Every structure is written in structure tokens, then in C-alpha cells.
């Protein structure tokens, strides 16, 4: 079959965040197929599609549509070449009608005056032609999310798109709406449209797609026919790592329980349940890994454990004392350390200097606080000490930190968090975006803290990292602990299945 779309050697580097979002990506889609584009958050799939749609200018690479090289600088160019995009967050005006939304910018008119009846008629015909019934006069704000998405799809179809890009289209849908969307996507494909389906849910891939491309770390790690692959294989491709990480560590010597979560439930920013009735314990001297595809409640769980988000239900205990309603500061004083997943916006304040960054969780302590005034000398001494102990060569006491590399920034975070000899450490994606050397440093620091007697909760979407470091592994799926495995004996396939939502001890779902 002919290629509907070919992207070659696409590269994009974001200087502001020091991320190589796309690195020499080749991506090809055949005409009339449903092509799933999968990968973790931050794997580069959204960047790739933003480049295709003219929202982001690539540093290098070329794009061919139907075999012809094209220049896409703006969304207008993409639309002209028959590429349409349905964004994850819909771009609709709540007070508009369905017809107004679909015809926005191309309204039928007579001598400059709008003709609403004509508009409604065009939309009705369009909807009928594609088998996507809608009420053209309904207001967007009155429609359920699934119908709003249908309006977005019709909007794209009305603009004569032949290639439809659906960015994480199921993220906001109910299971019933998902089933309906799958049917719509299959129908569109049969009618000759090419559909690119961005997702990180692997079960959806096997349900709807003909072919699948997996991205990881800004690179295309492989394209396969869905019939020739399995969910565990895709999971491995998604989370695997080129460098096999080996961490030397002594057998664990578990001590008393340092942290316990009992029946914990948490809601996310939008008010939806993100963590549902989760219970687990972390003992002194052990690393408990939480594996799972990102977006399955790990972020919310970590925020609840560290005090950044209120619980919906359940209890927390820190060093055998109730910590359910303690503030962040009280938890930190009780021995908690937190290495957050977002070091740039959460773990550090890039607008201030190193010294002030290092005292954020302990500026109230006598060491730095002299009758309400900062003790700048001991701040400076502390900075010098942390730089030495964690060999942060590039950092300067009293100097800025915004120009440090990602690895050195993470060293600053880890130096601050581990300096106080914490008893319980929460590390969320501690090596994301780091180079191999920095990864080794982070892993070594965590294992050392464990051997010193700290309990560690390690959250990571990197399966190999979880397996290399953890003494026990819990797998999270849709806000729940799907199962516990022993990293010494578990296979990646076993964990991959749990990550994809299979019940423990069952076989792979069939496509």
C-alpha cells in the first residue's frame, strides 16, 4: 500500500528545558490504516505530531504527504495538505452550537450575512455522510465529552482532512464512549481515511490499530504490525532502556515499618478518583518499587504521601505515628524526604540561588534560623558541605542554578533531600531525562540510603530501574495496586501484563 505520510529524520531540541524531544525520528503511515503511536509521557509523540501539524518547527527533517515533500509551517499548511488534528483538550467554544463550531472560520454566508439554516444543513449532511450523527443546533456546553469529541472529528473532516491525528482521544472518555470511538475509528479507516491514534494504553492499540509505532526517549524504537506483536512486547519496548542497568547491592535487611498507607484514596486536579483504596508498607532498609505506565495514579499517590495533596480517605503512618493530616513540614520534620518527578518546577526554584534552594525544607530549624533571621553563614557552609558530599562540581555556593545541567540539578535535589539522614524517602522518577552517569549516581545514592537504614518508596515508569533497585515491586494500574511481584524472580512479561491491567496469573488478552 502507498504511504499516506512519511516523516524522515525529524529532530527537535528544546533549549529551555534541555530536552531532545525528537531525535532523528522516522515515521511512516500507510494510506487507510489505523496507526497507533505509543510511548510514555515525554517520549516525544506529542512533539512529533505537533511538528506534523505545524505547531512546532523541527530543527531538521522532512515530511512527505502522498509521496510529495511538503513544507508545514503553520496549522493552515497542515490542513491544506489534508492533515487534521483532534487535540487531547478540545478547542471548542462552550456557547457555540455544534454547527457554528464545525463551520468556524468557513461559515456559509450571503453577501456577508450568516445563513444559519444553510450552516445547519451542511453539518447535518456531513454528519450523515460519515455516520456520525449530531444535532447541529445543540450547544457545545450541553454535550457530553464523547459528543464534543465527535464535533472535533467532524470539524476536521469538513476541512477535507485525509489524515486524522487523534491525540490521546480516550483519556477523557468513559468505557462506553471509548467503545463508540473505536467503532468510529474503524469506520473512518474503512472509508479510506488514515488515522494516527496517539495513546499510551496498550490494550487500545490491539483493539483498534493495524500498525503501531513505539517511541521512547525521543526516538522511534520500532514499528510493527499489531497482528505480529503482543502487549508485553510493546510494554517492554515502551519502558525498556538501551543500557542494561546493574546495581550492586547487598541483600536487604528489613527493619521496622517506617511508612504505612492504609486504604488510601486520592482525587486528581480535575476531581476524578486517581488512587483508589491503596494499602502498602515500607520497612526500614528496603526499597519498594511502584511500577506502572505513567498516569495510573502514581503522581497523586506520591503527592498524598508527601503531604502535597489531601487524602480522600484512608490513613498514613510515618515511623509508627499517624501522619494522615500532618503538613508537609511536619512530615519532613518526622523524617520524610521527597525527590519529586519535576525537579525544575517542584524540586527547585530556579529563580533563586543554590543556598536558598538547599534550605527550603529546613529554614525554620535552629541551624539556619536566628530569631527570625536567616543565618547566611551556616547556609553557605551547608551549601559547601552538600556540594562536597555529593560532588556537584558545577554548582557554586551562592550561585544560580538555572544553568546547571539536568544531572547536576538532580544532584542538588538529592543532596538536599538526603543530607538530613531521612528515615523515609519518596523518589518519584528520580532519573528521568538524565544521562547514564547521573543515573548511576542517583541509583548509588538511593541504595546507600537504604543500606544506611532508610525505607524508600521508588516510583518509576522505567521497568529496568524498578527491577534493578527494588526489593519488592508493586504494580499500579488505574489507581490501584494490581499486584506485587518479587523482582528477583519476576519476568518483564509478568510485570508488563500487570501494567497493562491484566489480573495476576492470567494469560495475555487476545487481539
Amino acid at each position, binding site marked *: 500500500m502507498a504511504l499516506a505520510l512519511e516523516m524522515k529524520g525529524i529532530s527537535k531540541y528544546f533549549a529551555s528545558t*534541555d530536552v531532545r524531544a525528537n531525535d532523528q525520528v522516522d515515521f511512516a503511515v500507510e494510506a487507510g490504516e489505523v496507526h497507533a503511536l505509543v510511548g510514555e509521557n515525554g517520549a516525544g509523540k506529542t512533539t512529533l505530531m505537533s511538528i506534523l501539524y505545524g505547531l512546532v518547527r523541527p530543527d531538521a527533517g522532512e515530511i512527505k504527504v502522498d509521496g510529495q515533500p511538503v513544507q508545514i509551517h503553520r496549522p493552515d499548511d497542515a490542513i491544506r495538505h489534508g492533515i487534521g488534528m483532534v487535540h487531547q483538550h478540545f478547542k471548542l467554544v462552550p456557547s457555540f452550537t455544534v454547527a457554528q463550531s464545525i463551520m468556524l472560520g468557513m461559515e456559509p454566508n450571503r453577501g456577508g450575512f450568516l445563513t444559519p439554516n444553510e450552516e445547519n444543513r451542511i453539518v447535518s449532511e456531513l454528519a450523515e455522510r460519515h455516520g456520525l450523527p449530531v444535532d447541529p443546533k445543540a450547544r457545545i456546553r450541553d454535550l457530553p465529552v464523547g459528543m464534543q469529541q465527535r464535533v472535533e472529528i467532524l470539524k476536521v473532516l469538513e476541512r477535507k482532512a485525509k489524515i486524522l491525528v487523534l491525540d490521546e482521544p480516550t483519556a477523557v472518555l468513559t468505557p462506553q464512549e471509548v467503545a463508540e470511538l473505536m467503532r468510529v475509528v474503524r469506520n473512518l479507516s474503512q472509508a479510506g481515511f488514515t488515522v494516527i491514534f496517539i495513546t499510551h494504553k496498550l490494550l487500545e492499540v490491539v483493539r483498534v490499530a493495524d500498525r503501531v509505532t513505539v517511541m521512547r526517549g525521543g526516538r522511534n524504537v520500532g514499528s510493527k504490525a499489531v497482528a505480529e506483536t503482543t502487549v508485553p512486547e510493546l510494554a517492554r519496548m515502551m519502558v525498556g532502556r538501551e543500557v542494561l542497568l546493574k546495581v550492586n547491592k547487598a541483600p536487604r535487611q528489613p527493619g521496622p515499618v517506617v511508612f504505612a498507607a492504609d486504604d488510601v484514596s486520592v482525587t486528581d486536579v480535575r476531581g476524578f478518583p486517581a488512587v483508589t483504596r491503596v494499602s502498602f508498607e515500607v520497612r526500614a532498609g528496603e526499597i519498594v518499587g511502584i511500577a506502572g505506565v505513567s498516569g495510573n495514579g502514581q503522581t497523586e499517590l506520591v503527592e498524598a504521601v*508527601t*503531604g*502535597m495533596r489531601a487524602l480522600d480517605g484512608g490513613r498514613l503512618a510515618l515511623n509508627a505515628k499517624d501522619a494522615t493530616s500532618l*503538613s*508537609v*513540614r*511536619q*512530615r*519532613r520534620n518526622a523524617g520524610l524526604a*521527597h525527590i*519529586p518527578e*519535576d525537579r525544575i*518546577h*517542584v*524540586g*527547585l*526554584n530556579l*529563580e*533563586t540561588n543554590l543556598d*536558598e534552594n538547599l534550605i*527550603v*525544607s529546613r*529554614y*525554620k530549624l535552629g541551624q539556619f*534560623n536566628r530569631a*527570625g*533571621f*536567616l543565618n*547566611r553563614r551556616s547556609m553557605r557552609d551547608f551549601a559547601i558541605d552538600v556540594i562536597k558530599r555529593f560532588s556537584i562540581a*558545577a554548582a*557554586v555556593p551562592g*550561585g*544560580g542554578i538555572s*544553568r*546547571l*545541567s539536568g544531572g*547536576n540539578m538532580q544532584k542538588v535535589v538529592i543532596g538536599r533531600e538526603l543530607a538530613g539522614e531521612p528515615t523515609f524517602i519518596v523518589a518519584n522518577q528520580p532519573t528521568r531525562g538524565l544521562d547514564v552517569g547521573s543515573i548511576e549516581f542517583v541509583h548509588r545514592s538511593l541504595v546507600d540510603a537504604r543500606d544506611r537504614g532508610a525505607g524508600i518508596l521508588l516510583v518509576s515508569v522505567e521497568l529496568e530501574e524498578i527491577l534493578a533497585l527494588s526489593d519488592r515491586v508493586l504494580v499500579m494500574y488505574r489507581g490501584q495496586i494490581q499486584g506485587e511481584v518479587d523482582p528477583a524472580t519476576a519476568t518483564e512479561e509478568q510485570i508488563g501484563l500487570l501494567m497493562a491491567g491484566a489480573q495476576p496469573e492470567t494469560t495475555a488478552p487476545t487481539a
Partner: protein
Amino acid sequence: MTHDRLKRLDAFLIPILAVLSGLVVSVILVLLTDTPPVEAYRILFVAGFGCNELTRCALFTTLERATPLILTGLSAVVAFRSGMFSIGQEGQYLLGAVMAAWLGYAIQLPPVIHPLFIMIMSMLAGAAYGWVPGVLRVKLGVNELLVTIVLNAIAVLFAEYMVQFPLRADAGAVAHSPVIDASAQLPTFLPGSKWGIGFVIAVLTAYAVYVYLWRSTPGYEQRMAGQSKRFALFGGIPSDNAAIRAMLISGALAGLAGSIEILGVHRRIMSAFSVGLGFDGLSVAILGQSHPLGVAIVAILFAGVRLGAQLGLQLEAQIPRELGGTIIGLIILFVALRKFYEGNLDRLRDWLVRRFNRGQARPER
């Protein structure tokens, strides 16, 4: 890190470049008059900052007029640095002024005690008026910018009402309150201007604000919460308390400005007392890079240019004094373009570092 050290110079370089750009562009307007630009600027400068004899010294009047600007500017600095975009200085300033005008004649206290007590009461009035947008922001998430705009309008009308009715001294054409007691007045230094103790208080306050924000733990909390809410949350900094505290302090400083303007300059409050000194404080804070030292310098510059335009350009050269306002407006416009300067300064700096550090280790990207 040569780069870091050079970067710190920006705090001074950008306002200087902005002022120069503003003056250069203003030349176009001066050319529309008959006065040569160099002559016009000379007149402006002499009338704003000159000093021939001690009793008729423009510089002293400039310092007098800079006093409320310093304090309202500091008020804005405290709010901005704490992540609160409050423009409520005008309203807080007016409440402080009304409080001072009233207590200045309504209660009898010995000298020194009287003005001190009044200044504290004015600060409390301003703080209370700052607390409202702070608490609305923290508890209900209401945008403090909108609330302070509305509160300013209320304060203007409230002050006017107080002058027209409860505080009105007589049935004269322009409503005004009784002159405050001599015991409440702040002393001035020299005849010929109202430059006095108030200015000293303002300068000491600028230093106190610097120490508070950069050297104290509550100030640290406010700055961290202002720079990154999520970092503050992560580190256990109570950013809600910090925001409310910022608004209380910000309000108190603006209230103090109103108090000093009454006790030290006007000695009573009159109809249409508000001439936008609170809003000028915003401009001063922005132009002064949200730093107390910058605020003090810019407030004096600001007051001088305005005085020079009024007394020099208007009276001597027959150039409308609005030119002074226009120059200030242009300067602020160029400060708003700081991204332009930053971008070019960054490029210049990179070039310099490359040129002079050749062969040495490059600073880490």
C-alpha cells in the same frame, strides 16, 4: 561564573538603558517646540534637581515629593516579590491619609507620641485594606488584581465622602478638613520645602524592607512562595500565610505613605486628595526592578523629572509640563521592553565571555 556576576549588573543596566531610551525618544516631542532639546533637558534638570540656595532648593522639593513614592513603591515591591499582583496602593494610601487627617485634630497627644500613634493607626488602616484582597485570594481564589482595582475605587469615593461631610472644616469652596494639631505635624528640615523627617522614615523603611525580604525567614517564605508556588508547597512553606502577610505589609506601607503626606506636607486632607501617588508607586516599583534600592533611586528621579517639567519646562520654556509625564511614560514603556534589553544583553554577554574566556572552561550551559 563570569556569567552570573555579569547578570547581576542587569538590575542597574536595564533601568539606565530604559531611561536613556526614553529621553532620546522624547527629543522628538521637544523638537515640536521651539526650545532646542539640549536646552530643554538642561532646564528640566536644573528645575528638578538643581540647588542654588538652601531655602529655594529644587532638590529638596524633589526629595519631599519622592517620599510617598518611595513608600508606595515599597508597598508594591513587597506584594510583587511575594507573588501578589496587588495594585491596591492607591486605596491603602488614601485610607492611611484619611486616618491621619482625622486623628491629627480629633485626639490630643504630646508631640512625638502623637505622630507616632497616627502613623501606626494609618498603617493598620492600610494593612486592613490590604488584608481583604489577600484573604479573598487565599480562601476563594479571587484574583487580587481585580479586587484591588475595585477597592481603589471604593477608597477614592470613601475619602471624598469623609472630606465632604464628617471631616469638613468649614463651608469653603474646596472642602477640606481642619488643620492637624502642631503636636501631630512631622518636622521639616529647612524652610522653602516640606522635606523632612518623613523622607528619613521612607529611606529607613526601604532598608527595613530589604532586610525583611532578603534576610528574614518570613521574607524568605514570601519570596519562595512568590517565585514558585509548587516549590513552596513541596518544601513545606505555608504560602497562604505568606501571601496574606505580604498584603498586610504592603497595605501598611501604603498607609504609612498617606500618613506622612498628611502629617508632613499637607497638614490636612482636601477634596480630590488622590492624585495617583499610589499608582505612581507601581511604576516606581516596576522601574526600580522591584528592589528597595531601585525604588528609592527611581522615586527621586521620578519626582525630579515631574518637578522639573512643572517648574522648569512649563514656567521657563513654555513647554507644557505634560512633557514630564510623557518622558516618564516613555521610560516605563522601555522598561516594559526589558525582554528586548535582556535578549540583547545576553547576546552581548555571551559574546564577551567567549572573547575573553577563550581557551578557558566554558560555563556550563
